[in-house]
């Protein structure tokens, strides 16, 4: 359905001039620094997949999404969607894509939300009946009714995101590209949006590709993860594969009742991280030892007063992959 082959994207940036009259000289000639935003990425996505596309800031995620949706042209390599190139046939391909940039709305800022859907329906050549059915479904699923007549600029962030998702889905695209669809939302709004995305993936068979910085998005939604860092593909597989591959330790911090309990070596395969007063911090590789087993090991030295566990940080995982 989506085939990406050896995708490259270079940006040229004007290098600042040094020396006298630099301002004037930069008007006439420029030196460029080349930055490789995306570097030899290939992957294939089949119908019905839910793919998380992750990586640190500036890794090339948005650039890839922009190339997939025909906004940018690749420096080299190829994108095929429904066996068409989004660059040569931008208008044809965009008709079957739904794209959402979480940081930016595609709705008409000053108009009631409903009007944006009218305009979009016309752009995508939907007739009145089709628009009505489609909007009817989305209204129910995304609870749009509470703000359909409110100008977009007055919506809360959560409402705006729902409105934007509806806008991306209005023309019933088969593929969805979602760039940070949960950014800035509160817990409840995030949960609602995840539930909705899960539904349309499972029940309507939409193919979804999502970028995010929220590890929970990935864990709860994606059957597959693609990691990109410095423009290169770092990993492509399931979440479990990803965890296994990294083997990042979970941090367990226990506080003993009595200070004497601290006077012991940390048993393998746990590793001591730090000690302070009655608090011991250890690293635990969950592939080797479950959390319960680890606690049992630690409990043999004395009664525990408090336990605290930290899962590895998302950004750390990404960095570790590369």
């Amino acid at each position: 359905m989506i085939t990406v082959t050896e995708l490259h994207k270079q940006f040229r940036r004007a290098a600042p001039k040094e020396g006298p009259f630099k301002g004037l000289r930069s008007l006439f000639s420029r030196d460029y620094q080349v930055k490789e935003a995306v570097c030899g990425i290939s992957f294939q996505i089949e119908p019905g997949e839910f793919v998380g596309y992750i990586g640190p800031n500036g890794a090339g995620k948005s650039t890839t999404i922009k190339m997939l949706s025909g906004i940018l042209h690749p420096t080299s390599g190829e994108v095929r969607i429904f066996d068409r190139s989004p660059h040569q046939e931008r208008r044809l391909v965009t008709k079957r894509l739904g794209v959402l940039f979480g940081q930016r709305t595609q709705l008409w800022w000053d108009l009631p939300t409903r009007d944006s859907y009218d305009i979009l329906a016309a752009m995508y050549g939907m007739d009145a009946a089709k628009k009505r059915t489609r909007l009817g479904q989305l209204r129910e699923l995304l609870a749009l009714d509470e703000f359909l007549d409110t100008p977009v600029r007055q919506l809360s962030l959560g409402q705006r995101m729902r409105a934007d998702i509806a806008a991306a889905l209005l023309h019933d695209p088969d593929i969805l590209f979602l760039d940070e669809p949960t950014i800035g939302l509160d817990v409840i709004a995030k949960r609602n949006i995840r539930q909705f995305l899960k539904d349309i993936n499972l029940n309507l068979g939409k193919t979804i590709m999502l970028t995010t910085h929220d590890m929970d998005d990935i864990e709860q939604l994606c059957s597959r993860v693609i990691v990109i860092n410095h423009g290169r593909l770092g990993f492509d597989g399931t979440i479990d594969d990803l965890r296994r591959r990294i083997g990042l330790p979970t941090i367990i911090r226990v506080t003993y009742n009595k200070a004497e309990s601290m006077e012991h070596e940390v048993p393998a395969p746990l590793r001591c991280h730090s000690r302070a007063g009655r608090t011991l911090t250890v690293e635990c590789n969950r592939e080797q030892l479950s959390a319960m087993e680890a606690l049992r090991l630690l409990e043999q030295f004395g009664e525990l007063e408090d336990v605290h566990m930290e899962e590895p940080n998302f950004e750390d995982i990404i960095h570790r992959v590369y």
Partner: protein
Amino acid sequence: MLFLTLARKMYLSNLQYRSAHLVHNIASALFGLIYVSVWTGIGEGRSLGEYGLNGIISYVAFNQASLWIAAFLNNGLGMEQSVRTGQIALDLVRPVHLFYQLMSKEWGQIAYQFVYKFLPIYALYFFVLPLHVPSSVITYVWTAVALTLAAYISICLNYIIGAAALWTTESRWLYWVNYAFSMLLSGFLIPIEWLPPWLAAISRASFYPFLHYVPTRIYLGMESPSALAGSLFWCALFTVVCLAVTGMMRRKVEVQGG
């Protein structure tokens, strides 16, 4: 000193765009050439009063260059922007008077424009047009004083225009309306004595002549420096108005929270 710090900052922040501004000077110089051509066309076969063809060319050319001192300031001193972002409330609670802050910054802007716009444009005209240039040093001094007072009046005007944004949200349009009136009433293109009597009367009753007409005539040696008494009067009046406006703004911000 706060005044110098603010003015310097503004000057320096403009400096990084100077290559773009030099390109912009081409457009600005072209505008002046258009107006000069209009008068050359009119002057064909006619005498142009006390100015003469060369006089009127010098008059228009000097006006065009001095636009950058007496007319093209930051639109409303940038207040429309700070009203929209809510920054204005912060600026108002600073221990320094808002008018003083903004005025100091604007002098930096004017200093920059004098060096990178007024001088290049006037230099260009000096070489391509038959300009009348004063020979006595004292004329230059009085011209400088006249332009400084004109700049101050213009700063006050823009302060008031910017403050209007607090009530109208759009002060950009007021800026351009003021600009349009100033083109007509300041004697920018047409010496005031050649305006129809009713327009000339309006002009003479206003501050507009002190922006262009008076400084340029002093420069051309056609007006005595005593005309600057009028400039001083308007400067004083505008200062009072600006202070009063600040008071109103403060009340407005206190009531509405910006």
